């Protein structure tokens, strides 16, 4: 099991919350944020940021009960009763989830660090550029030049 700054129970609850914030797409085999172990990322953030650690504790205290009590309705309630803590958790959850290269790949973005290889994008064929810009060129100039004569 991963190391976190929270108890096992806290962690189970947190994962249930995370799976509600970013749910899985089962058909496409994309895990939710709980299953994707975003809690371990949050634990690192909380260990460096006491304010955030306190906000997570506030949220966990507000959902005390079993994980069955963690429902979308409960989340909507927290969004209004503890808005700052909820927003902080949401922000860090998005950061933790999408900093995983495999989650990026699920939405069509490269799994690799973008340097040195980047992406292969071919330059447009000059004939295509010519064709696309033809109507723009045909209209002629679209600017005012009040100083053209001053300088000849």
């Amino acid at each position, binding site marked *: 099991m991963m190391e976190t700054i929270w108890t096992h129970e806290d962690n189970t609850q947190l994962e249930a919350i995370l799976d*509600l*914030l*970013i*749910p*899985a*797409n089962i058909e*496409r085999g*994309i895990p939710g944020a709980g299953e994707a172990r975003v809690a371990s990322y949050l634990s690192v953030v909380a260990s460096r940021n006491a304010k955030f650690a306190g906000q997570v504790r506030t949220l966990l205290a507000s959902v005390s009960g079993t994980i069955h009590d963690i429902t*979308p309705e409960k*989340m909507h309630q927290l969004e209004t009763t503890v808005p700052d803590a909820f*927003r902080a958790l*949401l*922000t860090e*959850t*998005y*950061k933790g*989830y*999408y*900093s*995983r*290269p495999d*989650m*990026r790949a*699920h*939405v*069509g*973005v*490269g799994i*690799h*660090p*973008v*340097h*040195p*290889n*980047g*992406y*292969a*994008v*071919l*330059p*447009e064929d000059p004939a*295509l*550029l010519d064709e*696309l*810009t033809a*109507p*723009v*060129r045909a*209209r*002629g*100039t*679209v*600017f*005012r*030049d*009040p*100083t*053209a004569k*001053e*300088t000849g």
Partner: protein
Amino acid sequence: MPNEPVDVLIVGAGASGAAIAWSLLDTRMRILCLEQGGHLHDKDFPSRREDYELARYGEFSCDPNVRGLPQDYPINVDDSCITPVNWNGVGGSTINFLGHWPRMKPSDFRTKSLDGVGADWPISYHDLAPFYDMNDANTGISGLAHNPAYPDYTPPLPPIPMGILGQTLAKGFNAKGWHWWPSDVAILSRDHNGRQKCVNAGTCDLGCAAGAKGGTNFTYWPILENAGVELRTNARVREILVDPDSGFATGVLYHGPDGQVHEQRAELVILACNGVGTPRLLLNSTSALFPDGLANRSGQVGRNLMFHPLTGVAGVFDEPMRGHEGPMACSILSQEFYESDPSRGFVRGYGLHSGRSTTPMTYALGGYGIDNPIPWGAQHRDIMDNVYPYLAGLTVVSEDLPEEHNRVTLDPNLTDSDGIPAPKISYRLGDNTRAMLKHGEERAREVLLAAGAKRILQKGDDKVWWRAGWHQMGTCRMGDDPETSVVNGWGRSHDVKNLFIVDGSIFATSGAVNPTSTIQALALFIGDRIKTNIANLFD
């Protein structure tokens, strides 16, 4: 103990500081540049890490208040709807800029006489044109020649790829019969001058690990340091010194890397600290001769702050738009609504920029420059799986008019890590800008639909992007009249004859285009005037 005096002292090693140093190289004067930050080392580029997006919210945030690095200074933004963003280090904000490179237009230099607003510049587009060309060659600009929105010029390199996103939007503009053109960019479409071409990584705000983006850390500084320009890093200038008898600048006091305050004397002082840093330094330089700040007899230092307020509209298409592939800022630019047309209900105009889409984390957190996470729950899944990959957007980039109440002052309490008073921004959107943004949003919507968008995503409020104070202009404006401007038509202070300003603070108006091409052309122009007038420079 004072250091050995130099001929030319430049404060700030960003876009303008580097360009003016290059221009003055052939004078063989002894040039020193003091820069509060350091060099960005190869190991520091986050885009080589797997979790590269995280850097955008930490050490590589464009917002100095978020980064909070020792070389950064905090900015009080409580009274502003836009927060200024920057980079403090060798290269300045060209480290994290996006490389979009449009020129200003002839009419931008004559807004007062043409449209009755703003101020006419003491110089014209045609005065700057040769310096735009010179700077384009030095920087390595890619673009397509014969853009009908400008007097004719030819970028030195062919355009970068537009990609499917740019092509799709171009067809939309053609369907409407509106102007568009592949963007000019300070990004290499080919290997050039020993630098590598762009690899379409899409993270230009995180520095450019390929060296393809025209940051002055890759363009001017290697040449300058080879040529003997001294660049002293981690050197933060706290005050410009003035001789009480002659009223001339004698040099500066700066905090060195040793934590001590040093004096540096110079014949000529040139400020290149950007539109917030320069007025801050002048306002911090008070004396019996200049009790309200150096070079501020007009009371204009810090006033007329202009950003380019932005908003965006996106369309959802049937095909993936692959918006994360390719330089972030620029694919195509429409200037159909750039010039004034009184029938629109506002003066001056705006550009429609096709920024490429951003990476997933940034999109989920609200987009680049915005802090507003997208919905959570089932909606989140749906947006990321079925909307995000299919997005193409347009950004409305509006001209900001100079208004005296939009300004930089000194915060009475906030300081940087050396105890130097920090700037405070007071800024609100003008009615003209609001009208322009609203008009732009509607036109963006029309063109996206014409391009085949199946759905339009629009914010539905009148808020502008928060972290979008990328362009900081007007706070030490140029003009012929010392009562209403800070510097003359070649960047020399009206009040202090051996003090020059070369950054975006000297813009008289903002245009509606990204400013760096013009900032650097102006710096080269000012360098040229200094050389031409060298015999009687201080008369």
